[in-house]
């Protein structure tokens, strides 16, 4: 019992005490969240009419953010594959961090979808036994299933491993390895199912294309890891946790390949629509050139495309990939570029033109933006607070009552095979 109290004491201590930058960051996020909550109160009272959505464009910023964040969550698996399957030591250490990022992203996903509903209180209608979920016919029910399943898998793996490190116990491989192995196809599943949500609609030819699911996966595997590269450098800078350069460069290589595939698929799309030249080309024409005088998304489309292209090149060339200034620039470019490509640049053209040929140009209203920023604030705050506990556990600072702080790399799961041992033992952990 004392140990439990000591654990909570340590948690509160870790959450409340930190360097000035921690306070500044948390305060900033709390401000964003506060504004978001105020704006949401307004939406709750007035309804979704405060957004820019109409019957013509019935999904907008909220669902765009949801789609993007499912990709970020799925990308955590990109770290698991090399860590556990290819036994690449430097990445094993940061896998838990990737999983916590996935949990934060999934939290934001669920928030975005819920606040996009006309009747969020009726969400129980979707649950089995008490509601009437249209399973297995409706893709939305599949999405709920796989997203929640992925959430529990990530929570399961990370809390188990962290508990073992915290308690100084040796982890039982057969307890967590099945979850780890399951999480790989599951991560592919969450993003494929999300893609299928859109893919399923014959009414929307822009989405009803076979390459949609592969393209979703490719862009997810660019944006998530790019975000991770930036986050890991911040962690390296502000905490005692040492992330090796080799790990970051390995992730960067994978982003490069994923972006290459993404461009391949974009090219396939563009060829099919523009060469065959049927009426179905309308949404792509709307994106890149404007349609019947409506060109609201054109400059954003070209901007996002240039960001992605420049990012891809910076990732491709070894010199710029291994230089941290150009690498970070590339990461930011990809994170922003894919946000547009998968968010607004994906959702909106599905509705332009409508099935009856009408064009309505949606643009998010101020309250919508404030609410979305608030949700991002919640996700980032959760991630920050989680890391504030996770990292001390991983570095060995936070141990169960009675245990002495030890190097986390003593743990079995963090050890790689002998061929990578040299890289592992090179890690240095500054003392308290």
């Amino acid at each position: 019992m004392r140990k439990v109290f000591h654990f909570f004491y340590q948690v509160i201590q870790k959450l409340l005490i930190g360097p000035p930058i921690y306070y500044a960051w948390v305060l900033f996020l709390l401000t964003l969240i506060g504004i978001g909550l105020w704006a949401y109160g307004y939406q709750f009272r007035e309804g979704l009419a405060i957004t820019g959505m109409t019957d013509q464009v019935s999904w907008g910023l909220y669902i765009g953010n949801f789609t993007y964040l499912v990709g970020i969550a799925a990308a955590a698996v990109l770290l698991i594959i090399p860590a556990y399957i290819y036994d690449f030591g430097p990445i094993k250490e940061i896998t838990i961090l990737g999983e916590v990022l996935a949990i934060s992203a999934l939290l934001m996903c669920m928030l975005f979808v819920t606040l996009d509903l006309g009747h969020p209180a009726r969400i129980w209608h979707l649950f089995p036994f008490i509601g009437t979920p249209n399973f297995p016919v409706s893709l939305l029910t599949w999405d709920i299933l796989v997203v929640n399943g992925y959430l529990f898998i990530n929570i399961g793996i990370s809390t188990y491993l962290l508990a073992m490190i915290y308690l100084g116990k040796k982890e039982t491989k057969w307890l967590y390895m099945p979850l780890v192995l399951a999480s790989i196809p599951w991560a592919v599943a969450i993003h494929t199912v999300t893609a299928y949500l859109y893919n399923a609609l014959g009414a929307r030819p822009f989405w009803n294309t076979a390459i949609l699911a592969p393209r979703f996966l490719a862009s997810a595997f660019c944006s998530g890891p790019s975000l991770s590269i930036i986050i890991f450098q911040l962690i390296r800078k502000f905490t005692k946790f040492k992330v090796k350069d080799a790990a970051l460069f390995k992730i960067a290589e994978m982003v490069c390949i994923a972006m290459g595939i993404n461009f391949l698929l974009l090219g396939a799309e563009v060829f099919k629509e523009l060469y065959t030249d049927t009426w179905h080309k309308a949404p792509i024409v709307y994106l890149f050139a404007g349609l019947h005088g409506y060109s609201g998304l054109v400059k954003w489309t070209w901007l996002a495309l240039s960001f992605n292209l420049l990012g891809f090149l910076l990732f491709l060339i070894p010199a710029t990939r291994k230089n941290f200034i150009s690498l970070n620039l590339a990461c930011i470019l990809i994170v922003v570029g894919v946000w547009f490509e998968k968010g607004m640049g994906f959702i909106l053209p599905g509705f332009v033109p409508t099935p009856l040929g009408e064009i309505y140009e949606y643009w998010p209203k101020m309250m919508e933006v404030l609410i979305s920023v608030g949700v991002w604030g919640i996700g980032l705050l959760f991630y920050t607070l989680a890391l504030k506990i996770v990292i001390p556990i991983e570095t060995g600072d936070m141990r169960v009552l009675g245990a002495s702080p030890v190097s986390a790399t003593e743990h079995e799961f963090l050890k790689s095979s002998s061929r990578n041992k040299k890289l592992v033992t090179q890690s240095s952990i500054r003392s308290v």
Partner: protein
Amino acid sequence: MKKEYENDMTRRKFLKGAGIASASLALGGCGVGEELFQSDSFDEFFQSHFTEMSPEEIKKVRTRLQKQYKKKYGREFVLGTEPAYPNVLFAYGLDISRCIGCRRCVYACVQENNTSRRPQIQWIRVLRFKKGTLNFEESDHYYEAGMNPQEGYYYVPMQCQQCENSPCEKVCPTKATWKEPDGIVVIDYNWCVGCRYCIASCPYWARRFNYAEPEIPTEELNPNTHYLGNRPRMRGVVEKCTFCIQRVRKGRYPACVEACPVGARKFGNILDPESEISLVLKNQRVFRLKEDLNTQTKFYYFFSI
């Protein structure tokens, strides 16, 4: 669904009771509860899916809603829950040769179906095409309507096509929309969560969402309603044409059919070989829109001249 409802009813009754008890304890005053649950009462919040209600529950819901409408609008409402007639499958015929684009059907529908006036919701949309093309991208939805059709154009009114293989029924995550035995695709407005997946899925852009609380002047209300049709809706739910289910299940025509001054609209029971619609299907050169999507709609267009 109905045969399983008894098991679900015990389970649901328990959960409902537990839910109501805890919710009441948690929230105290009903004012806060109503706001938070976006519902006029706890009973409404916890009511079941319409197809899973026992006859007693339907009766209770009916009484409750009638009381609610009386309180809110100050008028006595008839809230029908008539099931489908056996051996009836409704279909619609639209004679494009006759349509003059006057839009009387649009307004008759608004009047009949208690759709919101502010913001304005219209279930029927009339498209004006230039003669020679059926390219929707080239259509005009906002032309100046009058009693004279404009030279060189033709008009195609569109509303819910009541698909046999409907995409909206497929994608709805809560089964809030489904096809009734007489072919009408209906919505249980108290079950819809407002995710708008069905709106994205509809190839005919037939469905509308109540982004705001619907506003209807009380003197313009139509008190003859059906639970699955034209009863007043609330904010946050989807709605659409139901072939005037409140009328057709009592042997009347949909309002749009009656309103059309030139007789462009035909309606009836496709299973009755003597009905007007059966004669239309037999004798006219009928076609359906976006047939390649395999929606198997019940809305047949034709040119009688």
